[in-house]
């Protein structure tokens, strides 16, 4: 456990020691701010019954942040250690493979969650300056964050897995990006699959990230997306663990 915490701290601090972390934060703050600005413009033009949280995520910026930031955060985790050789010193300490994988994942996830903090400020500003207190409903903000958290788990585990496969950060980032986009595109597929009742559309429906996120922004917690993202996360972490372990059976 102590080794795990040490590793998590190291992962997190590595974001803040180098410029990468700050550049990512700056980029995300810019995107969130941009979506905030366009949102306010929209709200000024006409009133809307849709919750503010949903408006936030419905701008494409939200997905942009997720899709671009996930590869950037995770590409370093294993690939860089392999490239610099520190992987060897790490893996010859009495720390289990699973612990290393979990620590890398936790580090990436915590950093990802930090990235989303400015959103709270934006929502708070809306509430402060709008006369309508219902614009800021703690419940729906909480579920929005739950959705952000679950999507983060999924995308971080995916990125960590890609990073464990290679020693090149660029390849890792591209693989993560491609897989992330593919997963995201499934929700568009839903519209073209046809009848709502066919099994195809039900399968696609389980993976429809946009629909899931819409529910969360509405303040609805559906168990299906929760199970879906957590199980996929576990699956990718398991694959990562096995791929880290595979050096011992080759």
């Amino acid at each position, binding site marked *: 456990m102590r080794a795990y915490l040490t*590793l998590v701290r190291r992962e997190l601090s590595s974001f803040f020691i180098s410029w990468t972390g700050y550049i990512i934060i700056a980029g995300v703050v810019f995107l969130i701010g941009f979506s905030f600005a366009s949102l306010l413009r929209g709200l000024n033009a006409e009133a809307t019954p849709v919750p503010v949280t949903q408006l936030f995520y419905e701008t494409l910026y939200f997905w942009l942040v997720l899709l671009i930031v996930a590869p950037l955060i995770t590409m370093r985790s294993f690939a860089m250690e392999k490239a610099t050789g*520190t992987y*060897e010193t790490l893996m*010859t300490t009495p*720390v289990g493979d699973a612990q290393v994988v979990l620590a890398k994942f936790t580090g990436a996830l915590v950093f990802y969650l930090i990235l989303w903090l400015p959103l709270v400020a934006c929502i708070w500003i809306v509430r402060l300056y709008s006369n309508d207190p219902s614009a800021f409903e703690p419940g729906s903000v909480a579920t929005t964050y739950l959705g952000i958290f679950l999507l983060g788990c999924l995308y971080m585990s995916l990125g960590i897995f890609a990073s464990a496969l290679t020693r090149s950060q660029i390849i890792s980032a591209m693989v993560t990006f491609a897989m992330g986009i593919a997963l995201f595109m499934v929700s568009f597929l839903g519209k073209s699959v046809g009848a709502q009742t066919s099994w195809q559309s039900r399968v696609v429906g389980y993976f429809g990230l946009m629909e899931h996120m819409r529910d969360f922004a509405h303040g609805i917690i559906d168990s299906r997306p929760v199970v879906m993202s957590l199980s996929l996360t576990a699956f990718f972490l398991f694959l990562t663990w096995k791929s880290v372990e595979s050096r011992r059976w080759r």
Partner: protein
Amino acid sequence: MDNGWMIEVENLTKRYPGRVAVAGVSFTVARGEIVGLLGRNGAGKSTIMRVLSGFMPATTGTVRVAGYDVFHQADEVRRCIGYMPENNPLLRDMRVREYLKFRASLKGLRRAVARERIDLVLQQCGLMDVQKRIIGHLSKGYQQRVGLADALVHQPQLIILDEPTIGLDPNQIRAVRQLIKDLGGQHTVLISTHILPEVEMMCNRVLILHEGEILAHDTPDNLQQIMSQGGQVIAEIVAPQDELHACWESMAEVEQFDLSAAEGEYVRCALTARPGVDLRPQVYALACERGWKLRELSRSRYSLEDIFVRVTRTDGEET
């Protein structure tokens, strides 16, 4: 389990796809020894070290460290080993002390113990003055010492250093060597290198590796003695050349000789003796007997370097 051996390697073979890196190597290392693995690049030194450190498994064969099987008891083995891989990878964005603290914690040291150990290794490795500096900003010599300090911090029984002096300037090399020498006795040390004087200076025993096999295995002195048998004796004598000629020819122990004029009136005789014979006393006796002036009398010993070249070359010619 514990029979006094720190390392027991039996029939270790490691195959990479399409290539055999180590082919059926067996050796043992006793506690407190400093053993050098010597070999050209690609001879299999790093592979053996990686298997020993538990980073990757052997294809076949058993490897035990301090009585623990490297594959089945990997965690116990890792606790006994301080390993510095090739090229000494470090987290270059960390500060020296911070890095050692991080490593100590990974190796399971409690905070109070870690602080004490870190102070000790910082002192031992001469890092006290730079402990607050960022590793990436340090000179290569200091970085190497940070790697050593990391290998030492948890007081391992066995220290494995893969080419610890590579890329250092002569002064830094000397410092690192002294450090390693000081480790002998309390720790068992296995170092790999392709720099021969290093082994001569530091190691109790040498393993010469070539293409994944052990070619020679002995103390540096013994190796020199064995290989230097039949070495050349050089004598510079004042005497008529034809007299010398006749004299060496009549001596049964001299296999071959070569005379050349040295400066002054001296004649330089290069005598090759039969294996196992030291010609020097006889040459001295002869010179005394005939009243010749004798200026130099020496036997050229093969350096480990010559031995290495000879051992690895013969092998190459055979295949």
